[in-house]
Each structure stands twice: as structure tokens, then as C-alpha cells.
């Protein structure tokens, strides 16, 4: 066992990389759930984004295009869910589970020719001056652009939900869709937009795995990241900054336990491998013990205008 080979600066820098897929998927789902819709298809949208982003990047050599394509693919898949649940009033839980299964199968089909291929990954951006700061520089200012995009999405989501009328309407729709409808808001339109945003975020989160974190296409490579994103949304009490906290905690422990495994810590590998899930959930449960849990009032309920 040799703990000295673990470099804390590299560890913190790489936890951001490990956490970003979950962060993107979770913030998207948080918005969807704030609008009162429970989409359990996050895993399916993530992996579809992963494969589409990978395929586009292989063919164009432009990772940025890959991320855009992944966002569009995730949003397109989420619209399938949107049409089924919002217009055809299907059950959200069953449809979401179906979407995950569909996404896993679809990605497997699209990804077959791309297995084992190499891909151009996102270049790191060294932010001038800031990246030269000792300790903080390598941790915060030597990342690829998607890390900064994901942080901007968190900040933007928080601002929009808390301080804008659009965010207020979205929260209102998620809290009580009948009241929102009675006041003349377009419940279904608001929800479809939220679902599409959630799909796009999940797609980008998936593409981050296949384009930056791994970077390769492997069948089933999201490996449950979509589910942990769903759990983080709940335990983060639907608050953007807590979603960030939960995702970074999860990413941090994931990276740490990998390092500990490599260092040969005398703890069973299985225990280390499950530790990110257990610790993230325990910490977020403790945080959410206090105060307002804030589950949107209409979460998962079917809206029909005539009732």
C-alpha cells in the first residue's frame, strides 16, 4: 500500500472530469422534475448521446459538433417520451423505463461499427494567467470547455429558476398544473420544453463519457450513471447547487476509490466500488433531513386539461 502516489491536486482536477456526465444529466432532470415530469429515461438518453456524439466526432473530427449532435439526439429521444406522456397521457414511470431500454438498444445498434475506434477528444483550455496560480490553477483552470459549460448550465439554471418569470412559471406548472392551466399557462408546452432541455443535458452528459472521460465507444458504457443522476436530483431537493455538490461528491469518491484500489488499500474492491453510491446517498440524505424537501407538487402526475 502506498498512499503517497495519490496526488491531491490531480485527484481534485480529475473528480471534476468524473462528475461532469452525472452533473449534466442531473441538472437536466432537475429542471424536468421541477416542471412536474418524472423522466426515468435519463440512462437511455445519456447512452444515445454518447454514441451519437462519438459517431459524429469520428466522422467530422470535431468534438464540439459531437456534443451538439449528442444534445440534439438526447432532446429528440426525450421528445418521444414527451409526446407519449404529455399528449397520449401514458404513464411516466413506465414510459421512462421504456425509454432507457430503447436507448440502450438503439445505442448498441448505432455503435456496432464504432467499437474500438479512436476519437479526437476535447482539447484542454489553459486559461491564461489563472492557470498559472499554484494549486488552484491546475484544479480549476486547466480543463476542457465542457466542464465550464456544465458549470454555466448549473449557474444559469439556478438563476432562471429563482429570478426569472420563465422559471417561476416552470415551477408553478410543476407545483400545481391545474392551477397553472386555470391561470392560462400552457402546461404541456412548458413541460415539453423542460423535457427537451433534460434530454439535451443528458445527451451531452453521455457524450462527455464517450468523448472525454474514456474516450472510446463501449457498449453500455454509461453503466448506471443515469440512475445515480436521478437519485442525486431527489436527494439534492431539486436545488441546482446541491445537484452540483452531489455530483462532485460522487465523482470525487469515484476517483478516490480508484486511486485507493491502485494503491492497494487492504479493503475489498467490492466495498470500494460501491462506496461512491453509498456515501453520496448518505450525505445527501443527511442534508435533506432538515427543512423543506421541496418535491414539486405535481411530480409524475398526468395532466389533462378537462379535469
Amino acid at each position, binding site marked *: 500500500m502506498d498512499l503517497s502516489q495519490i496526488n491531491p491536486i490531480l485527484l481534485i482536477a480529475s473528480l471534476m472530469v468524473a462528475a461532469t456526465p452525472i452533473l449534466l444529466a442531473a441538472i437536466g432532470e432537475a429542471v424536468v422534475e421541477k416542471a412536474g415530469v418524472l423522466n426515468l429515461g435519463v440512462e437511455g438518453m445519456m447512452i444515445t448521446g454518447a454514441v451519437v456524439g462519438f459517431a459524429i466526432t469520428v466522422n467530422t473530427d470535431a468534438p464540439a459538433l459531437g456534443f451538439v449532435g449528442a444534445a440534439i439526439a438526447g432532446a429528440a429521444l426525450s421528445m418521444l417520451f414527451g409526446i407519449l406522456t404529455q399528449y397520449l397521457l401514458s404513464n411516466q414511470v413506465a414510459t421512462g423505463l421504456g425509454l432507457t431500454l430503447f436507448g440502450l438498444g438503439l445505442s448498441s445498434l448505432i455503435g456496432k461499427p464504432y467499437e474500438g475506434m479512436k476519437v479526437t477528444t476535447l482539447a484542454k483550455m489553459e486559461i491564461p494567467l489563472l492557470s498559472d496560480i499554484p494549486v488552484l490553477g491546475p484544479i480549476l483552470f486547466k480543463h476542457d470547455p465542457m466542464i465550464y459549460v456544465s458549470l454555466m448550465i448549473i449557474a444559469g439554471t439556478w438563476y432562471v429558476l429563482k429570478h426569472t418569470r420563465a422559471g*417561476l412559471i416552470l415551477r408553478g406548472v410543476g407545483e400545481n398544473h391545474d392551477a397553472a392551466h386555470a*391561470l392560462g399557462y400552457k402546461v404541456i408546452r412548458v413541460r415539453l420544453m423542460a423535457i427537451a432541455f433534460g434530454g439535451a443535458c443528458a445527451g451531452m452528459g453521455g457524450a462527455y463519457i464517450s468523448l472525454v472521460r474514456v474516450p472510446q465507444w463501449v457498449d453500455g458504457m454509461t453503466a448506471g450513471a443515469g440512475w445515480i443522476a436521478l437519485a442525486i436530483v431527489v436527494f439534492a431537493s431539486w436545488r441546482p447547487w446541491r445537484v452540483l455538490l452531489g455530483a462532485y461528491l460522487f465523482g470525487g469518491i469515484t476517483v478516490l476509490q480508484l486511486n485507493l484500489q491502485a494503491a492497494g488499500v487492504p479493503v475489498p474492491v467490492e466495498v470500494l466500488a460501491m462506496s461512491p453510491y453509498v456515501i453520496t446517498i448518505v450525505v445527501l440524505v443527511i442534508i435533506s433531513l432538515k427543512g423543506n424537501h421541496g418535491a414539486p407538487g405535481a411530480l409524475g402526475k398526468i395532466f389533462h386539461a378537462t379535469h
Partner: protein
Amino acid sequence: MEETRTQDALLTLEGLTKAYPGVVANDNVSFSILPGEVHALLGENGAGKSTLVKMIYGLVKPDQGTMTLKDAPFQPANPAAARAAGVAMVFQHFSLFDALSVAENISLGMDHPPKPRELTARIRQVSEAYGLPLDPDRIVGELSAGERQRVEIIRCLLQDPKLLIMDEPTSVLTPQEVDILFETLRKLTQEGTAILYISHKLEEIRALCEHATILRLGKVVDTCDPREKSAKELAEMMVGTTLHVPERDASEPGDVVLAMDHVTLYTPSPFGTDLRDVSLEVRAGEVLGVGGVAGNGQDELLAALSGEARLTSGSVLLNGVPIAKLGPNERRALAVLSAPEERLGHSAAPDMSLTENALLTAAVRQRLTKRGFLRWGKTEDYAKRVIKEFDVRTPGPANAARSLSGGNLQKFVIGREVLQKPEVLVVNQPTWGVDASAAADIRQSLLDLAAGGTAVIVISQDLDEILEISDRFTALNEGRLAEPVPTRGLTVEKIGLMIGGMHAPALEDAE
């Protein structure tokens, strides 16, 4: 007279018709509303009042007919258009967002809300001007029913409406809160605002309204000045037949059947109310009425009696035997039955058939199961018996509970318990949202039950109902129960004071 009304009218409806598959909700409805007038819209459930106001508020498009607002054609495509034209509405079931603050709720109801800080200031200003105290920063889920209604009213007032529509505004208010509301409304009418007022409560309409339009089965059947009519006359105009007033033979109550002794119950729900040191006794053949405004522990009282909730302390005795530790089915076996307030989801499973719903509470006493298997034939017979004896209008027991109208489902869930010959029956809001004739049937069945020796506890917010059927009256206020007093000789004013938390001895002092 209608000619001159039409000439000066603020809003005139002409020949409004709206049909849904299988039912004509409004059939050629015409009337007009004058500026500064309180205009009552009267009718039983299903008479078409809701559809009519939804057309005025732009939620529903009429099939035929025209509306004129201030001499201009008025065809709101949506509520925003109606609000822009000066029509505002306070809903029957408050259309509020529990997790949002008062200011956020009000902002959502406005088309062009000012900046949050200005809005907060304006809310304070309007709430003071009209005597409706309200803190803009509080979360709506924490407010009382009366305060929640103020949110709705202030939301409307901020838009300077010319016509304010109020759908059953007093159903959740204490008599004192009703007085405050009426003062606010009178202040509004003096400023020229017209009010379209929908209510079941005829005495209120007589006190407040200057003109009434009566709807029956979607048609205007009459108009009148409600101040010149008695409540009974108004009710008869609504129902179209003479009202059946429940009757009972005066009889001496028997022994104490059920007693609660210093019961305290802490509720796990953040919106619930704890019961504090509640004691009561009910005798065989007696109807005990429990008044009080919603959210003062009614649901918890029922749960403590039915066995759904475990008491924090205290005891419940049936004929002197403690039953506090028994669950609902064990209590049913001892003939302690209950019918909760919430029809869909509490007293009945919405998507299950009436037969299945009959099984849910009657299985124990009617022996509808045998060695763990269901006896469907017997269950269906029991459901049919309830349907027949309580005149439940439904094609048959295979229909889902959800498909029944509120009144019919209520008759079913009450009948389901009554026919099990309970020794104690606890009902919460037995006639809430039920039309007048069905309500009279339900009350009569409760009285018949008491006449047969059952101890009946009626929890209700309808004071007229309690005065009509109960032998003794008590009231819940913040989870505390007032000392029961004989109903005979009680006035609505005294009851109002009891509901407000003043107990019987203090009442006597007050006289």
C-alpha cells in the same frame, strides 16, 4: 325590468350554449350584470354554473351565443384575454401553488407583473386598503384557508377588475372571516366593481346580493331579488321541488358507547394539525356534531377514531373497553365504522369498481371473504344493495368509483357504512359538494341510524347541517375540542365563537 338592466349593463350574456358529449351544460343562457352590483348565480351541482363562469373567464369557448362587455363584443380566447378586459376570478378550489410564496403566487396570476420589490409593496398596500392582512413573503402552503383566499382576492384586485367572479368563496371560512370578506366586497362594489357570486349558502346570498339568476339543468329558470325571498324559497327555485327537511323522533339517548379520554395525537404531516387533549363521549342514539374550520384537526379526529392513526397519549373506549391499540379492521369488527372526507382516494379507491370498493370496508362485517378468498357474488350483492337503498345513480356496481358524480359517490360511501349496522359511525363532511336533495337523503339516513341506537359523530364545516341533525354540538379549534353543548337553542353566532376557540363557559360569560 330586464330591458333597462340590459341598457346599463356591464356584461350582457345572450343565448350562451355549451354542450359536452351527452350533456348540455348551458342552454341558451341570457342575463346581464350591472356595474357595482353583487349578482348571485344559484343552482345545484351540475346546473351549469361552473361552465358558465368558465366561458366568461375564457377557459371554455361557447358553442353559441354572444357576450357584450361595456358595449363591446367580448369573446375571450383565454384567461389572459379575459383579465385584460377587466374580468377576474377567485376559484372554488383555490388555484394556488403551495410551495411558492404569496408574492410569487400573485405574480403568476398577473399578465404584466411589476418587479418583485414593487409587487411586494403593492401587495402590502392593497391588503391594508381592503382590510385583508397578508405577508407577501410567506409560503402559501403554511397559510390558513382564509389567508389563502386573501391571496386569490388580492391577486384579482391588483388588476383593477371591473367584474370579479367568486366561486363558492365562503365554503372554508369562519363566520367572522365571512364578515371580513363581505365588507371587502361591499367596499369594492362602492367603487363600481361588479361581482358575480356563486354559492350554495342561501343566507349569504340573501345578505350580500342584489340580484340573483337561478340555473337549473343548464337553463335560466328564474331571476329574483334574493333580499325579498326566504332561503327556503330560493332553495325551492333551485331544486324545482319542495325541499325535504330531515326529521327525527325525539328520543332519550342511551348509555355512553364511545369515549375519548385526553387524547393527544401528533400528526406526521407538515400540513396536518395535532390533536391536543381531546375528550368526548357519545351515547347510543345520539348525534354529536363537530364543527370547525377545515384544517383544525378534523382529519386527525377521524383518524384517531377509525384507527388509522396511533395515539400519542390518551385512550379510546368502546363500551368501557380500550380500543386505542386496534387498527381500522379490528375496529370495524367491533362495529366502529367511519367515512372520511376525501371521497376519491380516502373513502373510495377512484379506479376500482363499486363492488371492489364495497369489499374494502365491508369485508369484515359482511363476511365477504372466506379463508382468504373473496366472495365476489356476495360482495356484488352487497354493492347492489347499497346502490338500491341509497339511490346511487350509476349503471351498475361494475363502474369505477371515479365515474360517479360527487353526490352519488358520497351516497355510496355513506350507505356502505350505514348498511353494516354500525354501533358507532364517524363521518367527516358527509355532504360536502353534494346537491341539496342528495344531502337531505344522506342526513336522513344518519338520523335514521341514530334512531336505531347508533352513536353518530358528524364532523362538518356546514353549520346549518350540524344545527339540523345533531343533538349536541362541539367544535375543533387548533386541535382542541370545545366542551359539547346541546344544539337546541344554539345560534350561528355562538357557534362561530366556539369555532374561534372560545369554550362554553366563556360563552355564557359573554352573554
